[in-house]
C-alpha cells in the first residue's frame, strides 16, 4: 500500500522550489481543496496532478489514513477522519469582505478571527505564503500590502478591504519568474524553502525602500526574515544580483 501511494506522488511533476506558484495546475479546482480527483475507470489511478496537499485532503476524506502502512501506525494514533471534521462543520458567524489579491477581487465570508495569512492559505488556496511562527517573529508570512512588506500573520483579513495585496504567487510564476526569484534559483538561496517566499517578498519590498550597497546593508535590510537552514550567504548573493536587474 505504501509503495503504491509513494509511486503516485513520485510520478507527478515537482514545481520549481523557489517560492514559486503552488498547486494550481489547470485540472485541480482552485477554490476547493477537498475536490475529489477524477479516477480513470480501468486503472484506478488518479488522473490529475497529485500534490501533498490534495493527497492528504483526499486521503482523509476517503479514510485512506486508517489503512496506512505499519510504519505510520507505529507512530502516534491517527485520529478518525470523520470525527476530525465534526467541529469544522459547526456553524460559526462569518462576515463578508472583498479582498484584492494579485490583482483579482475575491468575495469572501470569513470568521472575523481569520488572519490575512490563514485567509490566503486556507480560504484562497494560495499556500505560497508560509506560516513559520504565526507571531511576527520570523517573517515567513511576508506579503505586500499596497506595495509595503508586512507580516500577514498579525493582521486580520477583515482589515484589508480596499488594500492591494501581493503574494509570492503574484510576483512571478515558474514560467515567468520575477528577477528576484530567478536570482534565488541561480544562487541556490534556499534549502528547505520554507522561509523563501517571505525572503523574496521582503527583499523585493526592501529594494523599493532602498538600502546601502554592501552585504551588511542587505542583511540589515532583510533581518526580519530568518532562515533555520542558514541559507543567508546565498540569500545575500541573490539579492545583490537581483538589485542590478530591478
Amino acid at each position, binding site marked *: 500500500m505504501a509503495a503504491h501511494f509513494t509511486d503516485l506522488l513520485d510520478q507527478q511533476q515537482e514545481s520549481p522550489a523557489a517560492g514559486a506558484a503552488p498547486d494550481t495546475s489547470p485540472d485541480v479546482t482552485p477554490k476547493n481543496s477537498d475536490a475529489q480527483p477524477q479516477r480513470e475507470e480501468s486503472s484506478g489511478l488518479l488522473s490529475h496532478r497529485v500534490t501533498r496537499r490534495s493527497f492528504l485532503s483526499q486521503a482523509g476524506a476517503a479514510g485512506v489514513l486508517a489503512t496506512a502502512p505499519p510504519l505510520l501506525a507505529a507512530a502516534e494514533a491517527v485520529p478518525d477522519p470523520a470525527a476530525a471534521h465534526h467541529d469544522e462543520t459547526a456553524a460559526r458567524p462569518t462576515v463578508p469582505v472583498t479582498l484584492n489579491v494579485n490583482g483579482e477581487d475575491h468575495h469572501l465570508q470569513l470568521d472575523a478571527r481569520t488572519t490575512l495569512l490563514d485567509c490566503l492559505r486556507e480560504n484562497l488556496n494560495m499556500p505560497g505564503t508560509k506560516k513559520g511562527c504565526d507571531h511576527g517573529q520570523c517573517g515567513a508570512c511576508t506579503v505586500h500590502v499596497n506595495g509595503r512588506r508586512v507580516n500577514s500573520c498579525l493582521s486580520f483579513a477583515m482589515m484589508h478591504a480596499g488594500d492591494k495585496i501581493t503574494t509570492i504567487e503574484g510576483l512571478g510564476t515558474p514560467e515567468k519568474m520575477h528577477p528576484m526569484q530567478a536570482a534565488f534559483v541561480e544562487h541556490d538561496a534556499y534549502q528547505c524553502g520554507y522561509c523563501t517566499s517571505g525572503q523574496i517578498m521582503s527583499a523585493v519590498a526592501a529594494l523599493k525602500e532602498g538600502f546601502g550597497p554592501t552585504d551588511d546593508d542587505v542583511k*540589515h535590510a532583510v*533581518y526580519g526574515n530568518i532562515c533555520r537552514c542558514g541559507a543567508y550567504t546565498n540569500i545575500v548573493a541573490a539579492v545583490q544580483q537581483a538589485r542590478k536587474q530591478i
Partner: protein
Amino acid sequence: MNEFTFERATLPQQAIAAGAKSPTAQLGATVRYIAGGTNLVDLMKLNVERPQQVVDINGLPLDKIEKLPGGGLRIGALVRNSDLARDPIVVRDYAVLSQALLSGASPQLRNMATTGGNLLQRTRCVYFRDTAHACNKRNPGSGCDAMDGYHRTLAILGTSDSCIATNPSDMNVALTALEATIQVQGVGGERTIPIAEFFLLPGSTPQRETVLQPGDLITRVTLPAPAPGSRSVYLKLRDREAYEFALASAAVVATVKGGTVSRVRVALGGVGTRPWRSTEAEAALAGKPVSSASFRAAAEAALRDASPRTGNAFKVELSKRCLVRALTLATTQA
C-alpha cells in the same frame, strides 16, 4: 482566539463610543482598538487579550506628521513606525526617536505598527504571555512566576512585590527623553498627558499600565521644539544585533557649551517597568564637564535604586555602561 465582533470606525467619536462600553481600558478590556495589530493580534492568539469587540481605527484621519508654529512636531497616532523613523524632520531634529524606532522590531512590523500602538505595547515577560502561568498583571492576585523563574529580560527599576515586568518599547524611551505629550480624546473631551505621567508603576496593581480610561483614543503625540544646539542618541544593547528587545538601552538628548553639559535629558530602556526617565542622572550631569568620570557618576546615580534579582543582576552594570556610552556618543563631535 475567542470570537469577537469586528467593526470599522470612520470617525473618532464612533471608536470612543464603542470603547466607552468596556469596563476598563486596562487588562480585561472588552473592547479594543486595532491599528497595526502587531501586539493585539499576537496577544489574542495567546488568549492574553480576549476582547469581545475589535474596532478597526485605521480609517481615522490621524496619520499626519505636522510641524507646529512654535517649532514642535505633532505626530498622528496612526503614523506607521517606519514612516515616523524616516521623516526628514525627525531624522534631523529628533534623531533619538528615529534611531530608537529603527532599532526595534523588523521592517515588516515597523510598516504595520503605529505611534499609538507602540505607546501601548505590552511586556514580553514569558509568564504574562503564557496563560498557564501565574501572573499578577494578567490575573491580579495569582502570583508572579517570574520572581523565582526566568527574569533575565525583566526590570530592575520601578519594580514591586507584585510585578517586575519590563516595558519593552524603544520608541517610548526616546519619547520620554524628548518630553513628549500625548493627546487623548475620550468621553469627556480632549486632554493632553505628559509622557512622564502616562505610564503607571506596577505597585500592587500591575494590571493597570497607563492612565487611560474606557473609550480613550490616543490621537496625537507632540514633541516640543528641539532644544537649541542639542544632539541626541539612542543606544540599544541586546543579545543579538537585530530583531530583539533591549536588555538595556539609553536615550540621551544633550547640549554642550564650553566643554560642560548645559542641558541633558536621560531615559533608560530595558530596565524599567515603564520607560525610565532618570532625573537623577540629569541632576548629576548638570553643569559638569564632558568626561567619562562625569558620565560614570551620572550612571551610578541613575541605577542607585535598582532592585535586581539573581537572573538580571547583570543589567545594573550593563545599564550604567550603556548610559556612559550613549552620553559619550551624544557629546562627542562627529
